[in-house]
């Protein structure tokens, strides 16, 4: 197993842990942080591939992913604040008004 494979394993592990956290946890803030972890895993794989190819497109892509992550957090935090003020809880199972 060379270095590329080890880095890709790490990236996949980060992504799977983040996905598991989004699926199985109930706290809205913890789910947000697990989404950040998924983005970090994808960023690591992008950097690895950019290094492997010797191309700077992957690094530029990581840079754009930073911007997207920042915009996502800036938008998700007010929504979480609104939900918490509405339901007095961070539990996502209580936000079920859109369920038919």
């Amino acid at each position, binding site marked *: 197993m060379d270095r590329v494979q080890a880095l890709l394993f790490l990236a996949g592990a980060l992504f799977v842990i983040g996905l598991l956290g989004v699926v199985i946890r109930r706290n809205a803030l913890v789910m947000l942080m697990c989404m950040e972890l998924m983005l970090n895993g994808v960023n690591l794989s992008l950097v690895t591939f950019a290094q*492997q190819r010797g191309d700077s497109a992957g690094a*530029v892509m990581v840079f754009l992913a930073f911007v997207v992550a920042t915009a996502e957090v800036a938008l998700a935090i007010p929504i979480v604040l609104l939900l918490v003020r509405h339901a007095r809880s961070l539990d996502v199972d209580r936000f079920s008004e859109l369920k038919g």
Partner: protein
Amino acid sequence: MLVLREPMRVALALITTMTSLGALYGLLGVHVIAAFQVLIYVGAVMVFMVYVIMLLEVREAPGRTRYSRWVVPGVATGTLLAIGLGLGTLASRTAALPATAGGERFGLTAFATEFLNRYWLEFELTTVLLVSAIVAALAVISVSRRRTG
């Protein structure tokens, strides 16, 4: 992060992970990305997150479970995905990393030149994204104002 109960501990674990990833990027030779990983993620995003955790401080009742009812299918899907990703990585034939890991290729000058020469359109599009995110956040705040009267 999957088993910790307090959101603050999850945030601290995530900060540790991000800082370690920044160190990894630095060791790989992508110093620009390493610096921005620490600056943006740890310095801006996670500080914002920690601030919100301290601001909310909603205490969960001790008896409540911390997992949703999707634990079993979630863990099964996650295990399958991990096995699939691992086997795919093992089966892939990857070229080795170059020995001089992109020292001059990913230096600040080369990165900035390429970024603003070839990818200036994407750079401008991110500003549109940021402006729309700000407008959307303001809209969310105005909705919450209207709801509370």
